Protein backbone atom coordinates (compact mmCIF):
# COMPACT_ATOMS: atom_id res chain seq x y z
CA UNK A 1 0.00 0.00 0.00
CA UNK A 2 1.22 3.46 -0.85
CA UNK A 3 2.13 5.55 2.18
CA UNK A 4 -0.77 7.85 2.94
CA UNK A 5 -1.00 11.62 2.80
CA UNK A 6 2.29 12.34 1.17
CA UNK A 7 0.63 14.52 -1.42
CA UNK A 8 -1.16 17.57 0.01
CA UNK A 9 -3.08 18.30 -3.21
CA UNK A 10 -5.30 21.37 -3.34
CA UNK A 11 -5.49 23.66 -0.37
CA UNK A 12 -8.80 24.59 1.17
CA UNK A 13 -9.17 27.72 -0.94
CA UNK A 14 -8.53 25.77 -4.12
CA UNK A 15 -11.11 23.19 -3.08
CA UNK A 16 -13.62 25.95 -2.39
CA UNK A 17 -12.88 27.46 -5.78
CA UNK A 18 -13.48 24.13 -7.52
CA UNK A 19 -16.91 24.00 -5.87
CA UNK A 20 -17.67 27.62 -6.74
CA UNK A 21 -16.91 27.05 -10.42
CA UNK A 22 -19.42 24.19 -10.55
CA UNK A 23 -22.40 26.19 -9.27
CA UNK A 24 -24.43 27.67 -12.16
CA UNK A 25 -25.42 31.33 -12.37
CA UNK A 26 -28.70 32.04 -10.63
CA UNK A 27 -28.52 29.14 -8.21
CA UNK A 28 -29.99 29.23 -4.72
CA UNK A 29 -27.24 27.94 -2.48
CA UNK A 30 -26.90 26.87 1.13
CA UNK A 31 -23.35 26.73 2.46
CA UNK A 32 -22.70 24.63 5.55
CA UNK A 33 -20.79 25.91 8.53
CA UNK A 34 -16.97 25.99 8.25
CA UNK A 35 -15.03 25.26 5.05
CA UNK A 36 -18.18 25.37 2.85
CA UNK A 37 -18.56 29.05 3.75
CA UNK A 38 -15.35 29.75 1.82
CA UNK A 39 -17.07 28.90 -1.46
CA UNK A 40 -18.78 32.30 -1.67
CA UNK A 41 -15.43 34.08 -2.02
CA UNK A 42 -14.63 32.22 -5.27
CA UNK A 43 -17.77 32.70 -7.32
CA UNK A 44 -16.68 34.05 -10.72
CA UNK A 45 -17.51 37.65 -11.69
CA UNK A 46 -20.84 37.95 -13.45
CA UNK A 47 -22.42 34.97 -11.72
CA UNK A 48 -25.16 35.78 -9.29
CA UNK A 49 -25.81 33.21 -6.56
CA UNK A 50 -28.35 33.73 -3.80
CA UNK A 51 -27.39 32.37 -0.42
CA UNK A 52 -29.91 30.82 1.90
CA UNK A 53 -29.19 30.47 5.56
CA UNK A 54 -31.66 28.14 7.24
CA UNK A 55 -32.13 30.35 10.27
CA UNK A 56 -34.25 32.65 8.12
CA UNK A 57 -32.54 34.73 5.44
CA UNK A 58 -32.44 34.43 1.67
CA UNK A 59 -29.91 36.82 0.14
CA UNK A 60 -27.17 36.54 2.75
CA UNK A 61 -24.26 38.88 2.04
CA UNK A 62 -20.67 38.84 3.31
CA UNK A 63 -19.60 39.39 6.90
CA UNK A 64 -20.07 42.97 8.08
CA UNK A 65 -17.18 45.32 8.70
CA UNK A 66 -15.82 45.06 12.26
CA UNK A 67 -18.04 47.03 14.60
CA UNK A 68 -21.01 46.76 12.24
CA UNK A 69 -22.20 43.38 13.52
CA UNK A 70 -25.87 42.98 14.41
CA UNK A 71 -26.52 40.14 16.87
CA UNK A 72 -29.92 39.68 15.24
CA UNK A 73 -28.51 39.29 11.72
CA UNK A 74 -26.59 36.03 11.80
CA UNK A 75 -26.13 32.90 9.74
CA UNK A 76 -26.64 29.24 10.60
CA UNK A 77 -23.19 29.19 12.17
CA UNK A 78 -24.38 32.05 14.43
CA UNK A 79 -21.87 34.44 12.89
CA UNK A 80 -22.75 38.03 11.97
CA UNK A 81 -23.62 38.47 8.29
CA UNK A 82 -25.23 41.10 6.09
CA UNK A 83 -28.26 41.05 3.79
CA UNK A 84 -28.04 42.05 0.12
CA UNK A 85 -30.60 44.27 -1.62
CA UNK A 86 -33.39 41.89 -2.61
CA UNK A 87 -32.94 39.78 0.51
CA UNK A 88 -35.85 38.65 2.66
CA UNK A 89 -36.42 37.27 6.14
CA UNK A 90 -38.78 34.44 7.10
CA UNK A 91 -39.50 32.03 9.92
CA UNK A 92 -38.18 28.51 10.32
CA UNK A 93 -41.17 26.66 8.88
CA UNK A 94 -40.92 28.74 5.71
CA UNK A 95 -37.15 28.33 5.65
CA UNK A 96 -37.41 24.55 5.74
CA UNK A 97 -40.19 24.67 3.15
CA UNK A 98 -37.44 25.98 0.90
CA UNK A 99 -35.16 23.12 1.92
CA UNK A 100 -37.53 20.17 2.22
CA UNK A 101 -39.60 21.28 -0.76
CA UNK A 102 -36.58 21.01 -3.09
CA UNK A 103 -36.40 24.70 -3.87
CA UNK A 104 -32.70 25.10 -3.05
CA UNK A 105 -30.38 24.13 -5.88
CA UNK A 106 -27.09 23.39 -4.18
CA UNK A 107 -25.93 22.67 -0.67
CA UNK A 108 -22.24 22.41 0.19
CA UNK A 109 -21.49 20.48 3.36
CA UNK A 110 -18.55 19.10 5.28
CA UNK A 111 -18.26 15.40 6.07
CA UNK A 112 -16.91 12.94 8.57
CA UNK A 113 -17.38 10.13 6.04
CA UNK A 114 -18.91 9.69 2.60
CA UNK A 115 -19.69 6.22 1.29
CA UNK A 116 -19.37 5.12 -2.31
CA UNK A 117 -23.17 5.00 -2.66
CA UNK A 118 -23.49 8.63 -1.54
CA UNK A 119 -24.32 7.97 2.12
CA UNK A 120 -23.17 10.89 4.25
CA UNK A 121 -22.12 10.96 7.90
CA UNK A 122 -21.41 14.46 9.16
CA UNK A 123 -23.28 15.02 12.41
CA UNK A 124 -22.02 12.57 15.00
CA UNK A 125 -19.08 10.28 15.63
CA UNK A 126 -21.46 8.02 17.50
CA UNK A 127 -19.27 7.95 20.60
CA UNK A 128 -21.28 6.95 23.63
CA UNK A 129 -20.65 10.15 25.60
CA UNK A 130 -21.02 12.49 22.62
CA UNK A 131 -23.84 14.99 22.84
CA UNK A 132 -25.89 14.56 19.70
CA UNK A 133 -26.44 17.78 17.74
CA UNK A 134 -27.90 17.60 14.27
CA UNK A 135 -29.16 21.09 13.36
CA UNK A 136 -30.38 21.34 9.79
CA UNK A 137 -27.99 18.80 8.24
CA UNK A 138 -30.54 16.00 7.81
CA UNK A 139 -33.10 18.39 6.34
CA UNK A 140 -30.56 19.79 3.89
CA UNK A 141 -29.41 16.43 2.55
CA UNK A 142 -33.01 15.19 2.30
CA UNK A 143 -34.29 18.27 0.51
CA UNK A 144 -31.70 20.16 -1.51
CA UNK A 145 -31.49 19.18 -5.18
CA UNK A 146 -27.70 18.82 -5.38
CA UNK A 147 -25.45 17.98 -2.45
CA UNK A 148 -21.75 18.77 -2.71
CA UNK A 149 -19.40 17.61 0.01
CA UNK A 150 -16.13 19.42 0.61
CA UNK A 151 -13.70 17.60 2.87
CA UNK A 152 -10.10 16.56 3.37
CA UNK A 153 -9.59 13.23 1.66
CA UNK A 154 -8.16 11.63 4.81
CA UNK A 155 -8.34 12.22 8.50
CA UNK A 156 -5.42 13.61 10.48
CA UNK A 157 -4.48 10.06 11.36
CA UNK A 158 -4.50 9.07 7.70
CA UNK A 159 -7.77 7.19 7.51
CA UNK A 160 -9.89 7.47 4.42
CA UNK A 161 -13.00 9.62 4.75
CA UNK A 162 -14.24 8.19 1.46
CA UNK A 163 -15.42 4.78 2.57
CA UNK A 164 -17.23 1.68 1.39
CA UNK A 165 -19.82 2.05 4.10
CA UNK A 166 -20.04 4.76 6.75
CA UNK A 167 -19.20 3.58 10.25
CA UNK A 168 -20.50 6.80 11.81
CA UNK A 169 -24.25 7.46 12.17
CA UNK A 170 -25.73 8.61 8.86
CA UNK A 171 -26.98 12.07 8.05
CA UNK A 172 -28.72 10.74 4.97
CA UNK A 173 -28.72 7.71 2.69
CA UNK A 174 -27.48 8.06 -0.90
CA UNK A 175 -27.70 11.85 -0.80
CA UNK A 176 -24.30 13.11 -1.95
CA UNK A 177 -23.85 14.02 -5.60
CA UNK A 178 -20.21 15.10 -5.71
CA UNK A 179 -17.23 15.11 -3.35
CA UNK A 180 -14.47 17.73 -3.43
CA UNK A 181 -11.36 16.68 -1.51
CA UNK A 182 -7.82 17.98 -1.44
CA UNK A 183 -6.87 15.12 -3.78
CA UNK A 184 -9.77 14.76 -6.21
CA UNK A 185 -13.27 15.52 -7.31
CA UNK A 186 -15.47 12.42 -7.23
CA UNK A 187 -18.94 11.98 -8.69
CA UNK A 188 -21.38 9.61 -7.01
CA UNK A 189 -22.83 7.56 -9.87
CA UNK A 190 -24.96 4.44 -10.16
CA UNK A 191 -21.76 2.58 -11.01
CA UNK A 192 -19.86 3.95 -8.02
CA UNK A 193 -17.44 6.78 -7.31
CA UNK A 194 -16.21 8.23 -10.57
CA UNK A 195 -13.05 10.35 -10.55
CA UNK A 196 -13.82 13.63 -12.28
CA UNK A 197 -10.55 15.42 -11.62
CA UNK A 198 -7.37 14.82 -9.63
CA UNK A 199 -5.14 17.38 -7.96
CA UNK A 200 -1.76 18.03 -9.56
CA UNK A 201 0.63 15.15 -8.89
CA UNK A 202 -2.10 12.72 -7.88
CA UNK A 203 -2.28 9.51 -9.89
CA UNK A 204 -5.31 7.24 -9.96
CA UNK A 205 -3.23 4.52 -8.36
CA UNK A 206 -2.22 6.83 -5.54
CA UNK A 207 -5.75 8.09 -5.11
CA UNK A 208 -7.15 4.57 -4.90
CA UNK A 209 -4.46 3.58 -2.46
CA UNK A 210 -5.42 6.31 0.00
CA UNK A 211 -9.17 5.72 -0.50
CA UNK A 212 -11.15 2.93 1.16
CA UNK A 213 -13.99 3.14 -1.37
CA UNK A 214 -13.52 1.69 -4.81
CA UNK A 215 -12.95 4.39 -7.44
CA UNK A 216 -13.74 4.38 -11.14
CA UNK A 217 -11.61 6.35 -13.56
Amino acid at each position, binding site marked *: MVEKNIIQGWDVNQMAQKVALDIPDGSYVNLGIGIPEKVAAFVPEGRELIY*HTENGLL*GMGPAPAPGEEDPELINAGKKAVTAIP*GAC*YFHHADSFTMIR*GKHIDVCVLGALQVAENGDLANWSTGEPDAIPAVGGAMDLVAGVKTIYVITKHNTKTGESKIVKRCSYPLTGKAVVNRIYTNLAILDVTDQGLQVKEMAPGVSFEYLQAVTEATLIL
Partner: protein
Amino acid sequence: MINKILSSAEEAVHDIFDGATIMISGFGEAGSPIELIHALIDQGAKNLTIVSNNTGSGEVGLAALIAHKRVKKMICSFPRTANSTVFPELFKKGEIELEIVPQGTLAERIRAGGAGIPAFYTPTSVGTPLADHKESRTFDGITYVMEHAIKADFALVKALKADRYGNLIYNKTARNFGPIMCTAAKTTIIQVEYLVNLGGIDPECVVTPGIFVQRVVHIENPAQESKLVAENRRYPW
Protein backbone atom coordinates in the same frame (compact mmCIF):
# COMPACT_ATOMS: atom_id res chain seq x y z
CA MET B 1 -27.43 37.62 -13.49
CA ILE B 2 -30.83 36.72 -12.20
CA ASN B 3 -33.67 38.37 -14.02
CA LYS B 4 -37.02 36.62 -13.87
CA ILE B 5 -38.90 39.40 -15.62
CA LEU B 6 -40.21 38.40 -19.05
CA SER B 7 -41.59 40.79 -21.60
CA SER B 8 -45.07 39.35 -22.11
CA ALA B 9 -47.71 37.04 -20.72
CA GLU B 10 -47.53 35.16 -24.02
CA GLU B 11 -43.84 34.40 -23.47
CA ALA B 12 -44.48 33.45 -19.84
CA VAL B 13 -47.03 30.74 -20.66
CA HIS B 14 -45.54 29.49 -23.95
CA ASP B 15 -44.47 26.07 -22.65
CA ILE B 16 -47.60 25.06 -20.76
CA PHE B 17 -48.36 21.64 -22.16
CA ASP B 18 -51.50 19.61 -22.81
CA GLY B 19 -52.42 17.66 -19.70
CA ALA B 20 -50.57 19.99 -17.33
CA THR B 21 -51.73 20.60 -13.76
CA ILE B 22 -51.99 24.33 -13.13
CA MET B 23 -52.66 26.17 -9.90
CA ILE B 24 -54.46 29.49 -10.35
CA SER B 25 -54.54 31.99 -7.51
CA GLY B 26 -57.58 33.94 -6.48
CA PHE B 27 -60.61 33.85 -4.25
CA GLY B 28 -63.42 35.03 -6.47
CA GLU B 29 -61.93 37.81 -8.52
CA ALA B 30 -59.51 38.93 -5.81
CA GLY B 31 -56.07 37.74 -6.86
CA SER B 32 -57.19 36.08 -10.07
CA PRO B 33 -54.42 36.43 -12.70
CA ILE B 34 -56.83 37.21 -15.49
CA GLU B 35 -54.27 38.35 -18.07
CA LEU B 36 -52.17 35.21 -17.60
CA ILE B 37 -55.29 33.07 -17.98
CA HIS B 38 -56.19 34.90 -21.18
CA ALA B 39 -52.67 34.31 -22.48
CA LEU B 40 -53.15 30.62 -21.69
CA ILE B 41 -56.41 30.59 -23.65
CA ASP B 42 -54.57 32.11 -26.62
CA GLN B 43 -51.76 29.60 -26.21
CA GLY B 44 -54.13 26.67 -26.59
CA ALA B 45 -53.05 24.04 -24.05
CA LYS B 46 -55.84 21.58 -23.25
CA ASN B 47 -56.78 18.65 -21.01
CA LEU B 48 -55.68 20.77 -18.09
CA THR B 49 -56.22 20.02 -14.42
CA ILE B 50 -56.85 23.31 -12.65
CA VAL B 51 -56.42 23.82 -8.93
CA SER B 52 -58.24 26.97 -7.89
CA ASN B 53 -60.70 27.84 -5.14
CA ASN B 54 -63.55 28.72 -7.52
CA THR B 55 -64.42 28.29 -11.18
CA GLY B 56 -64.63 31.90 -12.33
CA SER B 57 -67.47 34.22 -13.30
CA GLY B 58 -69.10 35.18 -16.56
CA GLU B 59 -67.05 34.28 -19.60
CA VAL B 60 -63.71 35.85 -18.81
CA GLY B 61 -60.65 34.59 -16.96
CA LEU B 62 -60.95 31.10 -15.51
CA ALA B 63 -64.57 30.76 -16.63
CA ALA B 64 -63.47 31.51 -20.21
CA LEU B 65 -60.74 28.86 -20.00
CA ILE B 66 -63.38 26.37 -18.89
CA ALA B 67 -65.84 27.57 -21.55
CA HIS B 68 -63.21 26.84 -24.20
CA LYS B 69 -63.11 23.23 -22.98
CA ARG B 70 -59.47 23.38 -22.05
CA VAL B 71 -60.10 22.03 -18.57
CA LYS B 72 -60.49 18.32 -17.96
CA LYS B 73 -60.74 18.54 -14.20
CA MET B 74 -61.23 21.18 -11.52
CA ILE B 75 -59.87 20.75 -8.00
CA CYS B 76 -61.59 23.37 -5.87
CA SER B 77 -63.57 24.07 -2.72
CA PHE B 78 -66.44 26.12 -4.08
CA PRO B 79 -67.28 25.76 -7.77
CA ARG B 80 -70.45 27.85 -7.61
CA THR B 81 -70.23 31.62 -7.38
CA ALA B 82 -72.31 34.61 -8.31
CA ASN B 83 -72.39 34.73 -12.11
CA SER B 84 -70.76 31.36 -12.55
CA THR B 85 -72.69 29.46 -15.16
CA VAL B 86 -69.96 27.99 -17.34
CA PHE B 87 -68.73 25.34 -14.92
CA PRO B 88 -72.16 24.25 -13.65
CA GLU B 89 -73.44 23.69 -17.21
CA LEU B 90 -70.45 21.60 -18.27
CA PHE B 91 -70.52 19.69 -15.00
CA LYS B 92 -74.18 18.80 -15.33
CA LYS B 93 -73.47 17.54 -18.84
CA GLY B 94 -70.64 15.40 -17.46
CA GLU B 95 -68.07 17.23 -19.57
CA ILE B 96 -65.78 18.27 -16.74
CA GLU B 97 -64.55 16.45 -13.65
CA LEU B 98 -64.66 17.92 -10.18
CA GLU B 99 -62.66 17.08 -7.07
CA ILE B 100 -64.23 18.97 -4.21
CA VAL B 101 -61.87 19.71 -1.32
CA PRO B 102 -62.60 21.67 1.86
CA GLN B 103 -61.00 25.09 1.57
CA GLY B 104 -58.54 24.67 4.44
CA THR B 105 -57.61 21.19 3.33
CA LEU B 106 -57.05 22.53 -0.18
CA ALA B 107 -54.75 25.22 1.23
CA GLU B 108 -52.88 22.74 3.43
CA ARG B 109 -52.48 20.21 0.61
CA ILE B 110 -50.95 22.92 -1.57
CA ARG B 111 -48.71 24.10 1.25
CA ALA B 112 -47.62 20.49 1.86
CA GLY B 113 -46.82 20.14 -1.85
CA GLY B 114 -44.51 23.11 -1.62
CA ALA B 115 -42.96 22.04 1.67
CA GLY B 116 -41.95 18.49 0.73
CA ILE B 117 -44.60 16.94 2.98
CA PRO B 118 -46.28 14.10 1.02
CA ALA B 119 -49.23 13.65 3.39
CA PHE B 120 -50.69 14.84 6.68
CA TYR B 121 -53.65 14.26 8.95
CA THR B 122 -56.49 16.71 9.47
CA PRO B 123 -59.73 16.71 11.47
CA THR B 124 -61.57 18.49 8.65
CA SER B 125 -64.27 16.42 6.90
CA VAL B 126 -64.17 13.51 9.36
CA GLY B 127 -67.62 11.91 9.47
CA THR B 128 -68.72 13.57 6.23
CA PRO B 129 -69.08 12.22 2.70
CA LEU B 130 -65.84 13.98 1.73
CA ALA B 131 -63.95 11.58 4.00
CA ASP B 132 -65.39 8.52 2.26
CA HIS B 133 -62.67 6.21 0.97
CA LYS B 134 -60.03 8.24 2.77
CA GLU B 135 -57.71 6.62 5.25
CA SER B 136 -58.46 7.68 8.78
CA ARG B 137 -56.48 7.39 11.96
CA THR B 138 -56.84 8.25 15.61
CA PHE B 139 -54.35 10.37 17.53
CA ASP B 140 -55.02 11.04 21.23
CA GLY B 141 -58.57 9.78 20.87
CA ILE B 142 -59.53 12.06 17.98
CA THR B 143 -60.11 10.81 14.46
CA TYR B 144 -58.36 12.46 11.52
CA VAL B 145 -58.23 11.77 7.79
CA MET B 146 -55.03 11.51 5.81
CA GLU B 147 -54.70 14.01 2.99
CA HIS B 148 -52.08 14.06 0.24
CA ALA B 149 -50.01 16.96 -1.02
CA ILE B 150 -50.96 18.65 -4.29
CA LYS B 151 -48.22 19.77 -6.63
CA ALA B 152 -48.50 21.41 -10.02
CA ASP B 153 -46.54 21.82 -13.20
CA PHE B 154 -47.35 25.53 -13.31
CA ALA B 155 -48.85 28.16 -11.07
CA LEU B 156 -50.40 31.35 -12.41
CA VAL B 157 -50.46 33.93 -9.65
CA LYS B 158 -51.36 37.59 -9.37
CA ALA B 159 -49.32 39.77 -7.03
CA LEU B 160 -48.91 43.49 -6.49
CA LYS B 161 -45.16 44.14 -6.72
CA ALA B 162 -42.12 42.15 -7.75
CA ASP B 163 -38.39 42.69 -8.15
CA ARG B 164 -36.11 40.86 -10.59
CA TYR B 165 -35.42 38.12 -8.03
CA GLY B 166 -39.14 37.37 -7.96
CA ASN B 167 -39.74 38.61 -4.41
CA LEU B 168 -43.41 39.43 -4.11
CA ILE B 169 -45.95 41.33 -2.09
CA TYR B 170 -49.70 41.12 -2.59
CA ASN B 171 -52.67 43.45 -2.17
CA LYS B 172 -54.98 42.88 0.79
CA THR B 173 -57.22 39.80 0.49
CA ALA B 174 -55.93 39.21 -3.04
CA ARG B 175 -53.07 37.41 -1.28
CA ASN B 176 -55.22 34.33 -0.55
CA PHE B 177 -53.81 31.26 -2.35
CA GLY B 178 -50.93 33.03 -4.13
CA PRO B 179 -48.09 32.49 -1.65
CA ILE B 180 -48.72 28.78 -1.16
CA MET B 181 -49.30 28.12 -4.87
CA CYS B 182 -45.95 29.76 -5.64
CA THR B 183 -44.25 27.10 -3.52
CA ALA B 184 -46.03 24.10 -5.01
CA ALA B 185 -45.46 24.41 -8.76
CA LYS B 186 -42.42 23.50 -10.83
CA THR B 187 -42.82 26.75 -12.76
CA THR B 188 -44.48 29.67 -11.05
CA ILE B 189 -45.58 32.53 -13.29
CA ILE B 190 -46.51 35.86 -11.72
CA GLN B 191 -48.34 38.89 -13.03
CA VAL B 192 -47.72 42.10 -11.12
CA GLU B 193 -48.90 45.64 -11.34
CA TYR B 194 -45.59 47.14 -10.23
CA LEU B 195 -41.97 46.24 -10.85
CA VAL B 196 -39.50 47.58 -8.33
CA ASN B 197 -35.73 47.56 -7.97
CA LEU B 198 -33.97 45.12 -5.65
CA GLY B 199 -34.52 46.47 -2.18
CA GLY B 200 -37.75 48.14 -3.28
CA ILE B 201 -39.63 45.66 -1.11
CA ASP B 202 -38.75 45.80 2.59
CA PRO B 203 -36.96 42.50 3.36
CA GLU B 204 -39.10 42.18 6.50
CA CYS B 205 -42.29 42.43 4.42
CA VAL B 206 -41.61 40.11 1.49
CA VAL B 207 -44.49 37.65 1.39
CA THR B 208 -43.21 35.32 -1.32
CA PRO B 209 -39.42 34.97 -1.39
CA GLY B 210 -38.10 34.94 -4.96
CA ILE B 211 -36.88 31.35 -4.65
CA PHE B 212 -40.48 30.25 -5.24
CA VAL B 213 -40.90 32.28 -8.44
CA GLN B 214 -39.58 31.50 -11.91
CA ARG B 215 -41.21 34.10 -14.17
CA VAL B 216 -42.63 37.58 -13.69
CA VAL B 217 -44.72 39.58 -16.16
CA HIS B 218 -45.63 43.22 -15.76
CA ILE B 219 -49.37 43.82 -16.30
CA GLU B 220 -49.79 47.47 -15.55
CA ASN B 221 -53.56 47.79 -15.44
CA PRO B 222 -55.06 44.40 -14.80
CA ALA B 223 -58.67 43.96 -15.77
CA GLN B 224 -61.26 43.79 -13.02
CA GLU B 225 -63.22 40.58 -13.50
CA SER B 226 -66.49 41.83 -12.04
CA LYS B 227 -66.48 44.84 -14.35
CA LEU B 228 -65.91 42.66 -17.39
CA VAL B 229 -68.71 40.36 -16.25
CA ALA B 230 -71.05 43.31 -15.67
CA GLU B 231 -70.26 44.47 -19.21
CA ASN B 232 -71.00 40.97 -20.55
CA ARG B 233 -67.52 40.73 -21.99
CA ARG B 234 -66.27 37.41 -23.31
CA TYR B 235 -62.72 36.34 -23.86
CA PRO B 236 -61.34 36.26 -26.55
CA TRP B 237 -62.75 39.63 -27.49
